[in-house]
């Protein structure tokens, strides 16, 4: 028999199979589409919110940076600094310098010439971005100032002769007094170990990575994509110990919510896994068996256990965790607006274990999930943004991510490592 005969024979036979989908399938598809639309909208909302926060914070950071420059370069003053000719790096020092003026928040460079420059005893500043003059070679500023003078009139004063240069030096010495005072203050701050306490409110989105490698007692494989996250609320107190200017250590006590939600139709956990054990009702769920205490057939969600339940029922499993973080903080930007990176680990104690059914927005407590691990370890990473509102009080925003290193279920057939995306907002007080 030819291959194409075989193919045709079986194709004709198998095409006669017309299974009928369940009557409620279309309704379930519509529900799923609606839910996904809703989730997309929520995601867009959250993303927009976070983007707005970042925009706001980076605007503050930008203003802080400009202000820092303003302290060095007073408005309507000019600064002269040595430049390295990028075409010829060995050409320093040379007779060409750039005079910079801060006016309307723009540094306007201009090439000027200074004869016999003296580099001794000059004030060091952070290098300013490379300057490029139209039609000229690109110059990279060095990390020290040759001179620093206030201008008497607007615009760059051309340093055309030695007398003018000496005049600017004189002004510079007067200004240097103020600068050395600033430096002293900065040195004192550097040496001091600082303690601060902050209170945080931490809304977030808790989800997790879920696998169930075997077809366990729940009689169904439940896929990771069937598991949805929940909105979590939390907060707590944080103690920060600053050691030096850039490094700090953090600890404290936080309350966080973890968990998942999944649909009845996705895992059929309610009716296929239902059994009776004494006075307790058992419900098989993605994260293990739920003990349903004090079951009464007259409860509002009694229909939950019926195969013919018309509306999709969500099962939410929410765990409250008391967390003790240990984190290291590195301050990347130490201007007025502080930007820092955080990383560390947390010990987490599950103090609350609740399961809810949610049918058309009606949320009802149904019991607790068994075999949940009491102590877990998680790893944390985040970004810290701080802005002072007074000398001792700061507003803090910390977007962060936490991932649990262990499965919260002790059941060997269930692996659920929760993770939480959060935006912690708080107020910190320095002592």
């Amino acid at each position, binding site marked *: *028999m*030819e*291959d194409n*005969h*075989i*193919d*045709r*024979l*079986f*194709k004709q*036979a*198998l*095409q*006669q*199979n*017309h*299974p*009928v*989908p*369940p009557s409620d*399938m*279309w309704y*379930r*598809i*519509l529900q*799923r*589409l609606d839910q*996904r639309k809703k989730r997309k909208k929520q995601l867009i909302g959250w993303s927009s919110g976070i983007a707005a926060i970042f925009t706001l914070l980076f605007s503050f950071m930008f203003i802080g940076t400009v202000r820092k420059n303003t302290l060095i370069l007073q408005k309507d003053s000019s600064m002269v600094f040595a430049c390295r000719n990028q075409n010829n790096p060995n050409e320093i020092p040379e007779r060409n310098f750039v005079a910079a003026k801060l006016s309307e928040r723009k540094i306007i460079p201009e090439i000027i010439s200074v004869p016999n420059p003296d580099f001794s005893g000059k004030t060091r500043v952070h290098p300013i971005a490379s300057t490029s003059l139209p039609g000229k070679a690109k110059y990279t500023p060095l990390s020290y100032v040759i001179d620093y003078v206030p201008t008497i009139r607007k615009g760059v004063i051309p340093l055309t002769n030695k007398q003018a240069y000496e005049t600017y030096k004189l002004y510079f010495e007067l200004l240097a007094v103020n600068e050395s005072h600033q430096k002293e203050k900065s040195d004192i701050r550097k040496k001091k170990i600082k303690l601060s306490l902050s209170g945080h409110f931490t809304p977030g989105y808790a989800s997790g990575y879920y696998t169930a490698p075997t077809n366990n007692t729940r009689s*169904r*494989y439940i*896929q990771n994509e069937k598991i949805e996250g929940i909105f979590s609320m939390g907060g707590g107190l944080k103690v920060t110990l600053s050691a030096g200017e850039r490094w700090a250590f953090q600890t404290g006590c936080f309350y966080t919510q973890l968990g998942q939600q999944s649909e009845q*139709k*996705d895992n*059929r956990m309610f009716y296929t896994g239902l059994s009776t054990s004494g006075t307790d009702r058992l419900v098989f769920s993605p994260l293990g068996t739920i003990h349903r205490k004090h079951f009464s057939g007259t409860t509002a969600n009694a229909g939950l256990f019926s195969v013919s339940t018309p509306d999709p029922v969500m099962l939410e499993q929410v765990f409250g965790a008391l967390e003790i973080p240990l984190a290291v903080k590195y301050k990347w930007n130490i201007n007025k607006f502080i930007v820092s990176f955080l990383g560390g680990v947390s010990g987490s104690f599950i103090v609350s274990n609740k399961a809810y059914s949610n049918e058309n927005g009606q949320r009802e407590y149904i019991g607790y999930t068994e075999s949940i691990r009491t102590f877990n370890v998680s790893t944390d990473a985040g970004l810290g943004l701080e802005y002072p509102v007074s000398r001792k009080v700061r507003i803090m925003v910390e977007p962060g991510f936490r991932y649990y290193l262990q499965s919260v279920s002790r059941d060997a057939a269930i692996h659920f490592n929760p993770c939480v995306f959060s935006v912690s907002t708080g107020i910190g007080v320095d002592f």
Partner: protein
Amino acid sequence: MCDLNDILEKYRQGDREAAGRLYRIYASEMLALCMRYSRDRTEAEDNLQDGFVRLFEALHQYSGKGSFEGWMKRIFVHISLEKYRKNKSLLFREELPEYSEDEPEPVPEIPVSVLSRFVEELPERYRLIFHLYVMEELSHKEIASFAGISEGTSKSNLARARDILKKKIKQYLEYGR
């Protein structure tokens, strides 16, 4: 086809009823497809649901070029195989087909239920390739891409599936079982 274009256009304009019509036209056929790549009916229904959700979300990407049915089938096959692979690792073996001396024969009269049973009794890896090639009319290149195997493996598995089916038919015609 004109009717289908009309439905798709209405769906793009936000008409939900058009989605319902599309579902009613293809639900049975797609369920049959899902059942070919699922372990049981429940899983097939799950795949059917996931498939339609993905279809409706991706419908705006359908350019109108090529067969809509073929495009849709690929979505459902992809979803079903993706899940199949997750739940159980598929092992495809590189095998050479056994030499068959069968002469061209007329197509025999065998009940549909018996033929379905023959296909169901095929080893899993052969059955999947056979379904993808014969029912979904995918090329070996496409099958290789979907199943993550080489084209050679796809060809040899298909040849092996055909050989087994031929033997079963022969046995059935000789012994009636």
